[in-house]
């Protein structure tokens, strides 16, 4: 058989070689790229020792093989395989076969037989295992072919009796991945002596090697994943595996039990050593709970994770997981949680603890106590107390999932979650706070619990505090004392960490709107009003007072009786806050203030409309009045810009829109101003100095256009075209100015050329938008294009000048949503007078903490710039992990910037700011362009347009005082 095979292989191989020869004779050009198969063959024949051959194979494996030559290579390898005596070379060949059959586009049908045949005479276990692995790869590529799969599975079954664990391992893996899943196929196959895969795999659950046992369980899980319904009979086997000596086996067994419990939740299993029976899912739950106190933490993590997804479990089983059945000296003892609850319900508040307060109460019947086999008892108590934080996190996650599906469980697990707020690892604390937030719909916090929760507000980690604010946003509090407590603690938080201001206000906003009735009785106290006396008016700029007002106003929204309790200044403050912090203060119907709110209907939309209207009106005005005298235009533009900027400050929702248009108008204004310059009418050489203004304007317009294009999210192609148009105008201006100030024509040639190319690419890019641009600069320019191309530079400049002056300015359509990317550096604050001292030549780390809003892909675009007093600038790319995403459109950058410098004589300030990097390659215009245009213009796009990179500073610069000291000798 083998001899025959060899012959056949050799035949086919020679065919390949002949083709090579043909190639050689006919197409000489191909010679430079000889096929890999030929090269390999030559190499392998040259190899004198196995080590040599191995080297050749290793080299060969480094380069990819073209699809066409894969089969040839495989044949050569196989031929060599049969000749080779050294096991390591055969091993390498076997692994190469696997690699080759992975080549995309190659269908390994043709080599299946050969690959299977190689198995027959192989003695080395390692090589066998590798060959089976290759077969697995082949099988995975041919999943559509059931007969091949059946053959492979048969082969695997045959080798299951091998004495090496590696081979059995691979066999099981293969069966798991390729074994028949559909019932029909299995029946057909029975005639071909194919057996029940599940049984074959199940037999290996008791293999002597733990690795094989693991592989068997994994194969079973694989079958499950592929859609085979596992038999319930495996359950008992799997349960036995839970007591295995090896952690991988236990870990896999836990998974298997979980799978089975999901498949047969309702079937009944007997409890050993008693006549009772319980549901399978409960039994499995108990068993997995048991594994939470396993010796290996890997298993514990696994078990704790899986517990979370067993939602069908009966509630009394579930609740047991939180009850450890405390006792002391054989007497029943209550947990601290129970005591706290009792203390709370008895109305006593924080009495000093007495010695023996936790003394145990009733006696326990010794017979009834069951220390180990109590199944689910206290599983979560153990899990949450575990040594490894991985286990604790898994337990918290599981708690979260179970609590989401069972409100009563949520109520019970609250105490434990609250306890986790004190964990030593921040990650765990954060996770438990998030968990609590997720289940907060199901729960109401008791006062003592709230107390513990609020204690965490003093945590020095900002993440924790913010998570806690989020949590408070959606918690239910049961009493007015609770609200008061929360407010007091939040205010304490505010004084301790003033940077939390926004987050705390937001938190109070929700707290107020959720509990209007609880806030109502607190109002007089909170506003410190007095029935008889006038109290002094509080300071309006005090963040704490604002916080209180935010709480009250939000509560008043759904509590119409509340405003009656306000004093005069409260109304005034309302009006002020409604304007300045409109996102925090809701519109109220105030009795005495009809004039303020009554003219428009009380819906929210009405408040947005006027400002929106105003925005549109002012723009309308500008666009309509463009034919006034230049002086008028300038003034109007100036006013409008001022109005828009003011509007942006007042109305945060419209800030993006207003700023965007203001910038555009600013560009227009600059352009008009530049064109008004006297220099145009005077002979060039005389006004060399004054043209500084015009060139500066051109430069500024360019900058502003980049800002418009890249700093706003939501910009659409209709805006992009206008921006590009503006940029084109700026470039034209630049060209004209240069033409007027430079002598000689030579440099102008290049510039004109470039400019014309840009006009050309503009036309290509925005061809669909051109019809909308009647009468614009570019429109006119394109009309004149034929003339421009042929004329001299001086001519071109002249034409440009006139068109520029004659062109109308374009109407900028506004998109629905426009947001400006902003950044705010929270830390360093820039207020410190103490210089940061470090030895020169060494490095000092500066913590930078900033919030970013509306930045798309911050990981790629946001950079930190450090500017030293000597003008040296340094740009730092923060790590992707430094960015967090607390909400949609919001990002937070927490990073460290390393500073270093040579020694200074005295401390000096450096500037730190954030930059937004842009690259016109990534520009939204090109991405959003219609497909045909894109493909056409792709090749023709000039390089200059293709790769403009730059940065826009988009945060205020913060000054940091540093002092590099000279190194001590």
């Amino acid at each position: 058989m083998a001899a025959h095979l060899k012959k056949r292989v050799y035949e086919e191989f020679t065919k390949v070689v002949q083709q090579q020869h043909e190639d050689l004779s006919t197409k000489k050009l191909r010679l430079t790229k000889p096929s890999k198969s030929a090269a390999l063959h030559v190499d392998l024949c040259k190899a004198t020792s196995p080590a040599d051959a191995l080297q050749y194979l290793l080299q060969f494996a480094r380069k990819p093989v073209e699809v066409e030559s894969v089969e040839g290579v495989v044949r050569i390898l196989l031929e060599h395989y049969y000749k080779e005596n050294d096991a390591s070379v055969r091993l390498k060949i076997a692994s190469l076969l696997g690699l080759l059959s992975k080549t995309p586009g190659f269908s390994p049908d043709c080599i299946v037989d050969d690959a299977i045949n190689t198995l027959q005479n192989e003695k080395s276990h390692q090589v066998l295992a590798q060959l089976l692995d290759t077969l697995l790869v082949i099988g995975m590529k041919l999943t559509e072919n059931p007969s091949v799969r059946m053959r492979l599975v048969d082969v695997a079954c045959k080798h299951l009796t091998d004495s090496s664990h590696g081979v059995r391992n691979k066999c099981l893996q293969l069966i798991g991945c390729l074994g028949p899943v559909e019932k029909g196929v299995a029946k057909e196959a029975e005639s071909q002596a194919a057996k029940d895969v599940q049984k074959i795999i199940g037999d290996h659950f008791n293999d002597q090697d733990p690795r094989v046992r693991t592989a068997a369980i994994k194969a079973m899980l694989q079958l499950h994943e592929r859609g085979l319904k596992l038999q319930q009979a495996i359950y008992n086997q799997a349960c036995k595996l839970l007591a295995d000596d090896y952690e991988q086996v236990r870990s896999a067994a836990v998974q298997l039990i979980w799978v089975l419990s999901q498949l047969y939740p309702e079937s009944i299993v007997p409890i050993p050593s008693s006549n009772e029976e319980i549901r399978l899912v409960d039994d499995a739950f108990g068993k997995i709970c048991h594994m939470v106190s396993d010796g290996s933490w890997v298993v514990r993590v696994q078990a704790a994770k899986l517990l979370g997804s067993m939602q069908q479990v009966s509630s009394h089983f579930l609740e047991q997981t939180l009850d450890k059945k405390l006792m002391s000296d054989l007497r029943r003892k209550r947990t601290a949680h129970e005591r706290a609850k009792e203390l709370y319900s008895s109305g006593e508040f924080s009495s000093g603890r007495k010695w023996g307060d936790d003394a145990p109460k009733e006696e326990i019947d010794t017979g009834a106590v069951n220390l180990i086999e109590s199944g689910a008892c206290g599983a979560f108590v153990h899990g949450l107390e575990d040594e490894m934080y991985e286990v604790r996190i898994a337990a918290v996650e599981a708690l979260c999932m179970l609590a989401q599906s069972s409100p009563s469980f949520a109520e019970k697990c609250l105490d434990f979650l609250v306890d986790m707020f004190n964990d030593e690892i921040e990650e765990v604390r954060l996770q438990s706070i998030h968990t609590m937030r997720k289940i907060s719909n199901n729960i109401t916090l008791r006062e003592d619990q709230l107390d513990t929760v609020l204690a965490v507000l003093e945590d020095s980690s900002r993440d924790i505090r913010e998570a806690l604010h989020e949590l408070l946003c959606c918690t239910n509090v049961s009493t007015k004392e609770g609200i008061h407590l929360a407010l007091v603690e939040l205010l304490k938080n505010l004084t301790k960490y003033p940077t939390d201001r926004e987050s705390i206000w937001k938190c109070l906003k929700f707290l107020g709107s959720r509990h209007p009735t609880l806030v109502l009785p607190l109002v007089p106290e909170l506003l410190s009003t007095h029935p008889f006396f006038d109290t002094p008016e509080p300071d309006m700029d005090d963040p704490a007072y604002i916080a209180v007002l935010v709480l009250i106003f939000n509560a008043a929204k759904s509590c119409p009786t509340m405003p009656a309790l306000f004093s005069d200044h409260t109304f005034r403050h309302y009006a002020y806050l409604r304007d300045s912090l409109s996102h925090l203060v809701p519109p109220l119907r105030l009795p005495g203030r009809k004039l303020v709110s009554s003219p428009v209907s009380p819906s929210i939309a009405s408040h947005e409309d006027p400002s929106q209207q105003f925005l549109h009106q002012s723009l309308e005005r500008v666009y309509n009045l463009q034919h006034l005298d230049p002086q008028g235009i300038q003034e109007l533009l100036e006013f409008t810009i001022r109005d828009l900027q003011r509007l942006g400050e007042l109305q945060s929702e419209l800030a993006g829109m207003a700023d965007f248009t203001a910038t555009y108008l600013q560009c227009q204004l600059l352009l008009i101003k530049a064109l008004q310059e006297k220099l145009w009418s005077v002979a060039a050489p005389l006004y060399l100095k004054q043209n500084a203004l015009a060139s500066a304007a051109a430069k500024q317009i360019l900058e502003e256009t980049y800002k418009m294009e890249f700093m706003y999210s939501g910009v659409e192609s209709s805006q992009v075209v206008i921006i590009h148009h503006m940029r084109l105008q700026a470039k034209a201006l630049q060209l004209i100015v240069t033409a007027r100030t430079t002598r000689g024509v030579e440099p102008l040639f290049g510039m004109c050329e470039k400019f014309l190319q840009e006009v050309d690419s503009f036309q290509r890019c925005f061809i669909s938008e051109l019809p909308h641009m009647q009468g614009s600069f570019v429109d006119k320019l394109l009309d004149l294009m034929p003339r421009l191309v042929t004329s001299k530079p001086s001519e071109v400049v002249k034409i440009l000048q006139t068109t520029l002056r004659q062109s109308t300015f374009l109407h900028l359509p506004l998109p629905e949503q426009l947001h400006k990317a902003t950044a705010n550096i929270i830390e360093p604050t820039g207020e410190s007078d103490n210089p940061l001292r470090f030895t020169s030549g060494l490095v000092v780390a500066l913590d930078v903490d900033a919030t970013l809003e509306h930045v798309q892909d911050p990981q790629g675009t946001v950079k930190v710039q450090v500017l030293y007093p000597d003008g040296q600038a340094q740009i730092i790319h923060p790590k992707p992990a430094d960015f967090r995403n607390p909400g949609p459109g919001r990002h937070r950058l927490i990073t460290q910037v390393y500073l270093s410098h040579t020694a200074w004589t005295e401390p000096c300030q450096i500037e730190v700011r954030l930059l937004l990097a842009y690259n016109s390659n990534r520009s939204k215009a090109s991405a959003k362009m219609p497909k045909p245009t894109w493909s056409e213009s792709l090749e023709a796009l000039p390089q200059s347009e293709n790769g403009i990179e730059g940065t826009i500073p988009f945060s205020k610069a913060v000054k940091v005082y540093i002092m590099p000291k000279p190194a001590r000798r």
Partner: protein
Amino acid sequence: MPEIKVTPLGAGQDVGRSCILVSIAGKNVMLDCGMHMGYNDDRRFPDFSYITQNGRLTDFLDCVIISHFHLDHCGALPYFSEMVGYDGPIYMTHPTKAICPILLEDYRKITVDKKGEINFFTSQMIKDCMKKVVAVHLHQTVQVDEELEIKAYYAGHVLGAAMFQIKVGCESVVYTGDYNMTPDRHLGAAWIDKCRPDLLITESTYATTIRDSKRCRERDFLKKVHETVERGGKVLIPVFALGRAQELCILLETFWERMNLKAPIYFSTGLTEKANHYYKLFITWTNQKIRKTFVQRNMFEFKHIKAFDRAFADNPGPMVVFATPGMLHAGQSLQIFKKWAGNEKNMVIMPGYCVQGTVGHKILSGQRKLEMEGRQILEVKMQVEYMSFSAHADAKGIMQLIRQAEPRSVLLVHGEAKKMEFLKQKIEQEFHVNCYMPANGETTTVFTNPSIPVDISLGLLKRETAIGLLPDVKKPQLMHGTLIMKDNSFRLVSPEQALKELGLAEHQLRFTCRVHLQDARKEHETVLRVYNHLKGVLKDYSVQHLPDGSITVESILIQATAHSEDQGTKVLLVSWTYQDEELGSYLTSLLKKGLPSSTA
């Protein structure tokens, strides 16, 4: 039958003075060598005369193992080694070796300098004793001599506490010392692999208790301290220098760090500083958090906790002070207590149990007016809190450890008899293993069933496994071979090799049996009938009809002859070798039943 004998010299149905003698496979090991806190006479040390009346202990003991540095586990060590006389090896972990002499010296000072006892061990003796100590690492197998080996496992409880496995050949004992199955702020939980010892000797201090989650207690403690400090009050925490004190320090330190608190925390100096130094060094013995973060900052390098000076007690403003001793009976803690007791803003937190008669016990039981020396009446206005932080495994923890180690029997020490009784019953009921609880001086004998290793030649093993189906670990398997016992070793070899080695010729043993068969036919017809019958019954065997008129089934020969007297009876001669005994006897019984008539 081999046996393991265990005799507690201390800690048998008692807490304190841990000292357990174990003899296992001819080796004698002493586990722990502690003193008893409750006695000041001879009873405070174990009675070493039990081991030998005269002669040095070295001759009777192979080694001594100390589980951790608490005095009730190591307090008698210098007395034992220097005064009674023992020169053999003493094993303990590195942290125990480092901290143990500090505590012994402290103990010596109190007994000799303060109480004025004579005939007590000296500083030099402590030093000499420590020279005999061999330090071991966790999970390191130490070969005490050729047969005896010991291995340490992590036990939690205090820094450096370990459980020890003592192993001779296949027999083994695990001694837990004191251990803790729940991690705390500075130490991890005890862990042991499935080592399946013959005997597990475990402590049972909290045999009848199932403890609440630690987190509640911690949270309570922190809240109390935080509230008092915020009010501007002072907090006094009386502690013993080692163990819990470090846990509480870590707890407060991290809390201060987290909450950004500024109030000072002081630790009254003394031996604590030295001990803290060792805590810093032995980071690998602490819990996950400390181990993982020590690269940035060693948690025991306290930022907020500073050394205490007497003068600080009068400073205004809030502060937290840890002071020794823990029961407020003397020393610095009592001095500070007197100063602060009058102010209701202050607080004292007792983190442990207090012996009757101490100030600590009085205030815990609610006494508000204390009579001090010199007839002074001290009115206690400060708040008094009790927090229990214990580092022993509770009943569940003990069961969990037993489950992890899967011992064949369990022995309880270090606990009260009544409580042990309960736990014993539970262990027997739930694990179905024997459980013992000897009193001091009482010997418990545990019979073991050690497996005896036998060498087998690879050829034989392969041959035998090839015959059977898949090898199954859990089931015994039959195999043919010859056991050779020679020079204290056992070997299983194939019979041929055994014969060769012994220089013996092979003898063949053949069984022959005659079966009478009632059949009137001719001989060869009978033979044919028999052949057909056998062929029908023994489908899986090769049954052959030889030309000479005999039948072979595998190697069994059957011949038929007519009976010399009765021609109607045929005699079947069945002959088989010893190796085919099974088949041969089956065949005879088959033939004895006669041939089925249907073939006739």
